[in-house]
């Protein structure tokens, strides 16, 4: 018996009151978008508070499941048998077949959980439970009923058709993309920022990203690495417009004019300013960074305060209170870790002071920035307008 349909479970969006339909429609749209990349044809449909994905052609089960597991807003994916109603005997035969196929005659406990949405079905739900339970027990002497902690929950949904499923595979969770606006992710080649992008996208936020390129101090491969990371994140977040900003001129100006222990913090302030300008141009409502308290000198509470002061837009820092290992765990789960640890990142170390400030003083930093003169503003404007923007999908 080949699985032809999946029942899609979503939790959080079901409680969003009047907006519920909007959320559901977005989810259907996102599933359909994702399934387009899977070989075969699929019908994605919302009926009576349920979303079904049905294969219309031959397809690869693992590929389809993997695609569904990349869609935010899905809590569970239930591989399902959908049958037309040809009477209870027919249903009972299908359920026994299903159990045989899935579990053979293993000694396990089960419970039938029927829901009768179509009230004109001749049996009510407790009668369905009892009779199907009996049929399963008759067919598989090794199985037992356990109504409290069954190994297998046999779900029967009587609607226009009848759905049979026994397994709920964990989905990516979160909320459907496009239901919570758009953010500008500051994407470096490191471990943190792709995870920050993933986590924010998981809350339904669509992504733009900005990467600061500093040739010849960072290489073409470092840039390719960022494109690769964006591609992995895009598997979850959908297409990402990646804004590649040439930052060399600004870095050199800061290096020339500012105290060296302040290089990183001033550089970060300019990154925030440029990211904000790009965000405004691209209808983003927030910046997203991978900062985490105390991870490096530029991420102490004081440094974050000074960095934050450079822009006005909301800055989302989903990793702010995460331990490094927790961030690594997520990056391994979403598949960015291996790319993040490629070694093409650190050739711009000359811009990192040997002993950077950890407790920067805002006024001191502002004075240093003042030394950069008016020309730095022009450089920043030029960097924004000259940014290249490949779309990563």
């Amino acid at each position, binding site marked *: 018996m080949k699985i032809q349909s999946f029942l899609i479970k979503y939790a959080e969006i079901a409680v969003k009151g009047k907006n519920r339909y909007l959320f559901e429609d977005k989810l259907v749209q996102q599933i359909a978008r994702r399934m387009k990349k899977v070989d075969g044809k699929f019908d994605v449909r919302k009926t009576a508070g349920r979303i079904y994905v049905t294969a219309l052609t031959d397809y690869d089960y693992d590929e389809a499941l993997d695609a569904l597991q990349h869609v935010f807003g899905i809590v569970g994916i239930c591989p399902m048998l959908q049958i037309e109603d040809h009477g209870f005997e027919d249903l009972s035969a299908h359920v026994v077949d299903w159990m045989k196929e899935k579990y053979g005659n293993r000694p396990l406990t089960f419970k039938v959980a029927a829901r009768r949405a179509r009230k004109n079905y001749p049996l009510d739900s407790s009668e369905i439970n009892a009779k199907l339970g009996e049929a399963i027990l008759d067919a598989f002497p090794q199985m037992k009923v356990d109504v409290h902690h069954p190994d297998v929950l046999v779900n029967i949904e009587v609607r226009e058709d009848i759905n049979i499923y026994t397994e709920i595979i964990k989905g990516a969770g979160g909320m459907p993309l496009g239901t919570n606006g758009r953010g500008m992710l500051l994407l470096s080649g490191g471990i943190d920022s792709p995870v920050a992008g993933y986590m924010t996208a998981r809350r339904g936020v669509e992504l733009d990203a900005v990467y600061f390129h500093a*040739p*010849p*101090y960072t*290489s073409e491969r470092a840039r390719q690495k960022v494109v690769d990371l964006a591609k992995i994140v895009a598997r979850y977040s959908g297409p990402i417009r990646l804004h590649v900003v040439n930052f060399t001129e600004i870095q050199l100006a800061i*290096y020339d004019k500012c105290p060296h222990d302040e290089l990183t913090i001033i550089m970060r302030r300019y990154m925030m300013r440029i990211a904000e300008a790009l965000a405004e141009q691209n209808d983003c409502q927030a910046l997203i960074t991978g900062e985490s308290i105390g991870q490096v000198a530029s991420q102490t509470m004081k440094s974050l305060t000074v960095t934050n002061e450079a822009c006005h837009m909301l800055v989302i820092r989903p990793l702010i209170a995460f331990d490094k290992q927790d961030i690594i765990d997520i990056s391994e789960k979403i598949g960015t870790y291996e790319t993040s640890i490629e070694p093409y990142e650190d050739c711009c*170390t*000359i*811009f990192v002071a*040997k002993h950077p400030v950890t407790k920067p003083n805002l006024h001191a930093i502002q004075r240093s920035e003042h030394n950069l003169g008016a020309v730095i503003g022009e450089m920043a404007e030029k960097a924004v307008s000259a940014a290249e923007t490949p779309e990563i999908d």
Partner: protein
Amino acid sequence: MKEIYLDNSATTQPVPEVREAMMRALDAEYGNPSSLHRKGVEAEQLVREAAENIAQTLKVDPKEIVFTSGGTESNNLALTGTMLAGHRTGRNLITTQIEHASISATAQFLEQQGYEITRLGTDQQGRVDPEELVRAIRPDTVLVSVMMVNNEIGTIEPVEQIGALIKEKNPNTLFHVDAVQAYGKLIIRPRRMKIDLLSVSGHKIHGPKGSGFLYVRRGVKIQPVLWGGGQQGGLRSGTENVPGITGLGTAAKLISQNLDEKVDRLYEVREQLVRGLRSMEGVTVNGPEGRECAPHIVSASFAGIRSEVLLHSLEAEGICVSSGSACSSNGQRHPSATLTAIHLAPALRDSTIRFSLSFFTTAEEIDETLQTLEKIVPELRRYTRR
């Protein structure tokens, strides 16, 4: 943008004759050399011609040429094949600290299998001391493996002297030479030099990538590392890469024509580059002088500049060079074994660039490269980590 390609020790541009020869093997003469029919015979003929062309350049027998996928496979086959075949007579392999990774990593693997590896150091020019090498030879030394030209700094090793001394001390000890950077630049005579095995790569001599050969002197027993249909006398199973072999044979023939003349000219171009580099402040040229160095490799250290930054700055001007050796630039940063072995100051190891020339490199290109360096080096020195 103009392109000045000075990374010929990483790879070279295939010449048109090579492309054409390969096209024939891909197009009309596509047979499998093992097939009994006409198409097979045609293809076998291409392989035979290539072996003959190569054998001619070394003055050896075509039957002594085993085609491989390149330098790495040749080196792997030479080391693993002789050590496995010689396990009854001994367990010792002598090599040096400055070998290419395809030698040093294979030696390390053999060490893990229980073989004993002796790794000789070099002097500050990267030269192995033949006397020291001979002292290291034991009754159970199966193989000595020394490169002919160092890929990072261009040192020419005293291979002929080493070959003679080995056979004097222990006639049973085999001698393998990694000639990947030497073939097509130096005259190589395996018989006179007492070389038993010699590795060569096709794409370093304007041939195709994925091609190479191992010369195996008749009578030398080696254990194959690839098993299968028994092609190439059972030494290297697998359907022959006929297009690659044809390209390699053509490249070998072409590069050996008028070699003396071409090498003389190349040394002039090299000297021009070395002179220019030496006249620049804070630049040192590594490796030996003049004819003691290969004609195509120049290693130079630029104090206070990270090699990768200089490399990308040159790239922005259309000039391609390498930081250390291209293979050691892959993946994690390891300090270069060669630069460590010659006791280059640690601060300079990460500031070292390799320029590698070809017979097609012109004096104008070198001029332009030097001018570009004069311009960008002071700029880059302004921005160093403080």
